């Protein structure tokens, strides 16, 4: 019983991080129809920026804010400079560009920050809460992870639902040409969309790094799970991404807890293949037609 509780809790926390990463992918897919393979590297870059600030003696919170802001900047600049020229062209071009960015940013991190393993602090403890004499696998840090992702999601929902900019961004996502005819500055909305997505992606990077080791390619493991979560939820649906992330977190945690940790990545890919074969539009899709 205790093991089940622990495995479930672990799955939920992991799932929250997958959800944030998947949400970042979905935000970009919805607005520009591009799958951003560079998301992981971009998040790693901001984590290393945070690390440098912490090592310079600043607090975790200062580092967090600076990292998220620089995430926004990186996302916005990449959209404006690198992605804009391939937008609207053949889809393969954009895919190759983001793959190139993925490799380039990772290399850049190694050049600037070195490629050794470094530990990353957390603002909260990593010891599980104790009830009587049983310690469960829920730590102050995991509460922080869940809280941070939830707050970010609520903020995004508020932005999209209740503000004029959010409305313009949704309109641009649903019909660029029409939105343009109605006077929406679609280009700006796309830049903003990439910036916001990069913030959410950066958050997932910082959260997964907390209490662990970081190196330029540390996000690679998350990338796979994040993609699976996004596809699971249907690339078009932010809510689907969150549910997909949580589901995947739980399933992978059960696999690790009851079968073998070695099977985790393999089962993530197995889930991806099954979903693509059986429900290519994602678990919650209502539409039948979808291009690959």
């Amino acid at each position: 019983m205790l093991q089940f509780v622990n495995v479930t809790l672990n799955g939920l926390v992991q799932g929250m991080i997958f959800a944030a990463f998947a949400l970042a992918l979905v935000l970009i897919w919805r607005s520009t129809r591009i799958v951003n393979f560079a998301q992981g590297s971009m998040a790693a870059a901001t984590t290393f920026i945070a690390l440098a600030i912490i090592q310079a003696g600043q607090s975790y919170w200062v580092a967090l804010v600076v990292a998220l802001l620089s995430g926004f900047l990186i996302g916005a600049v990449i959209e404006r400079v690198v992605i804009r020229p391939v937008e609207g062209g053949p889809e393969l071009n954009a895919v190759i560009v983001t793959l190139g960015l993925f490799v380039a940013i990772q290399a850049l991190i190694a050049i600037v920050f070195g490629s050794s393993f470094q530990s990353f602090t957390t603002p909260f403890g990593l010891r599980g809460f104790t009830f009587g004499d049983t310690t469960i696998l829920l730590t102050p840090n995991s509460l922080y992870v869940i809280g941070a992702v939830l707050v970010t999601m609520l903020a995004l929902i508020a932005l999209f639902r209740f503000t004029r900019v959010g409305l313009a961004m949704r309109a641009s996502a649903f019909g660029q040409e029409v939105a343009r005819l109605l006077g929406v500055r679609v280009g700006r909305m796309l830049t903003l969309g990439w910036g916001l997505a990069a913030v959410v992606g950066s958050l997932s990077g910082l959260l997964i790094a907390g209490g662990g080791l970081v190196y330029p390619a540390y996000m690679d493991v998350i990338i796979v799970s994040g993609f699976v979560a996004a596809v699971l939820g249907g690339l078009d649906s932010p809510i689907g991404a969150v549910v997909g992330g949580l589901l995947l977190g739980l399933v992978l945690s059960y696999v690790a807890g009851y079968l073998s940790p070695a099977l985790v990545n393999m089962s993530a890919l197995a889930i991806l293949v099954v979903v693509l074969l059986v429900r290519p539009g994602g678990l919650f899709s209502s539409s039948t037609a979808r291009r690959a």
Partner: protein
Amino acid sequence: MTGISVAFGGVSALSDVSLTVEPGQVHGLIGPNGAGKTTLFNVACGLVRPDEGRIVWNGSELRRLRPSRLTRLGISRTLQGVGLFRGLTVLENVMVGAHRHAKAGFFSALFAVPTSDKDDARLRARAMTALEELDATGYATRYPDSLPYPVQKRVALARALVADPELLLLDEPASGLGEDEMHELGDLIRTLSGRMSVLLVEHHMDLVMRVCDRITVLDSGEQIAAGTPAEVQANPAVTEAYLGDEVDVATDAAALAAADGREG
């Protein structure tokens, strides 16, 4: 617009077409399929750049007209289909159209400072008024896909009107409408002309003849006639280009009947 010419590749789509929409008038643009009506329309809103010719709006020439500048110039257009945003409610769709009337800047809107809150409320109110005018307030919270086609068309029209344009470009507003709805549409367009100029592309001849002050007729990219509905109707070139089809149909029918008669 004067002397507009457009060619796609080597094919000439429009050659030397001139058209002026007078303030407060309804100007009809008609012609058989492929005559270049939609191309001219797209030139007027910056989607297609003319190879030759000038576009003058309110006394100043528009060079390098871009679609996103259109609403700020006071020009709105509707699309041939409906072109509503599928994932937005009817009210939200119309609010997007009211975009140019927002006062708060981009960044204050992003960070939701109080002035932009007031802005949002104002936009919402504007959008509701536009829906009211088109008798569609009841659908405000619905999504476009769940509505019948004529209602979608009304919402699309509300979205164009909410920007309070000086010139309204209507691209086949009557397509897919029934007889009664078309009649209502005609009345509406007449009412609108009190507030704005209208350029209307339409297939339904009776509607065009009823609501337009002036009409320009295109055929194969060339302007073959222009004038009041009565003048255009009396023009033999128009009858030939336009009603030619119907004459053909009549001849065909006669030929068929004759053939039937022979077999029978």
